[in-house]
């Protein structure tokens, strides 16, 4: 304080901009997570409907000697195949969008839109997508596994 000068890093000097960056990151995370959860509910609903529609078939499979875990495997397979198709579709779309966005000129010091193919993001997307699919599929699958064939045949 003797000289009347003080020093600070660029982060401190631009605290407002840094806060804006942080806010943006929070919003992006929230929006993408919301989308994943919505997609998860989609899969959950499809599977739930399939289980209700196929309840006779589930009963007959159980009568023939399929165990609870076999039934779970059938429905998880369906859920995961929906998940895998979604992930592959999502990857292709992401790659196309990145390719296009890279060519968008936004001017200023930045020039072209600063985006590139980031492997970690693709891996993150796959992993989180599959985890959500798994749970969205597991709940209806467990319901299917608990079907009591006798109560179905009685109707």
């Amino acid at each position: 304080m003797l000289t009347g000068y003080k020093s600070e890093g660029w982060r401190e000097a631009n605290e407002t901009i840094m806060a804006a960056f942080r806010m943006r990151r929070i919003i992006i995370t929230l929006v993408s997570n919301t989308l994943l959860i919505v997609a998860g509910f989609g899969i959950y609903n499809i599977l739930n409907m399939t289980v209700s529609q196929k309840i006779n078939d589930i009963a007959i499979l159980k009568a023939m000697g399929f165990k609870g875990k076999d039934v779970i495997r059938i429905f998880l397979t369906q859920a995961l195949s929906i998940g895998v198709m979604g992930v592959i579709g999502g990857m292709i779309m992401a790659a196309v969008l990145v390719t296009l966005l890279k060519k968008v000129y936004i001017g200023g010091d930045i020039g072209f839109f600063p985006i590139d193919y980031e492997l970690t993001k693709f891996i993150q997307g796959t992993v989180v997508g599959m985890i959500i699919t798994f749970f969205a599929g597991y709940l209806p699958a467990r319901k299917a596994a608990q079907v009591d064939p006798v109560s179905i045949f009685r109707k």
Partner: protein
Amino acid sequence: MNILETRNISKYFHDPVEFQVLKDISFAVRKGEFLSMVGKSGSGKSTLLYILSTMDTEYSGQLKVDGQTVTGQTNDQLAEMRNNKIGFVFQFHYLLPEFSCLKNIMLPALKLGKYTAQEIESRAYDKLKLLGLEDQALKPASKLSGGQQQRVAIARALINDPHIIMCDEPTGNLDSKNTAIVFDTFKDLTRSFGQPIIAVTHDEEFARNSDRIIEMRDGEIV
């Protein structure tokens, strides 16, 4: 040698009121026997069949399949046992409509995993031939007539060479011509292969032609 034996089986329904559906049922099914269970609606015959099939486990008493006590086994053990030893035919065929007849028949065998897929396929063809349906093998199950579907269901019940076949109103949904075909098939199975069959039925003629009739009234065998 008894293929199936029950000792003092009783069952209660608790809803809406306490009601005893089965009262101390004890009987046995011998090897190679074609047994019909008859009785009015509510006499407990279907309930008894579901207990015999090991799908219903809420009863008191003891059930033996093939000399082995199955009462008290876990659901998974029972499922395995059903896959191995029991074939089912229901009133409403219950084939999987999206699959071909052949696939439907192969399904329990693929689950059992005793043979390779090719062996299972040729065995499934044999069963279809036995029931006169080999030309329908590759059609989707939903494209067949009711009588044909029921015969495919019988072929499916046979695929794992079950120790016993259980039927719930196997002809309940069929006209007299198809009833005759199904009946002759069953008769043939017991005669030629010594295949034990238990059938719950309303059809008096069907019952009269079987080896033994068990009549049920108010939860008891009369």
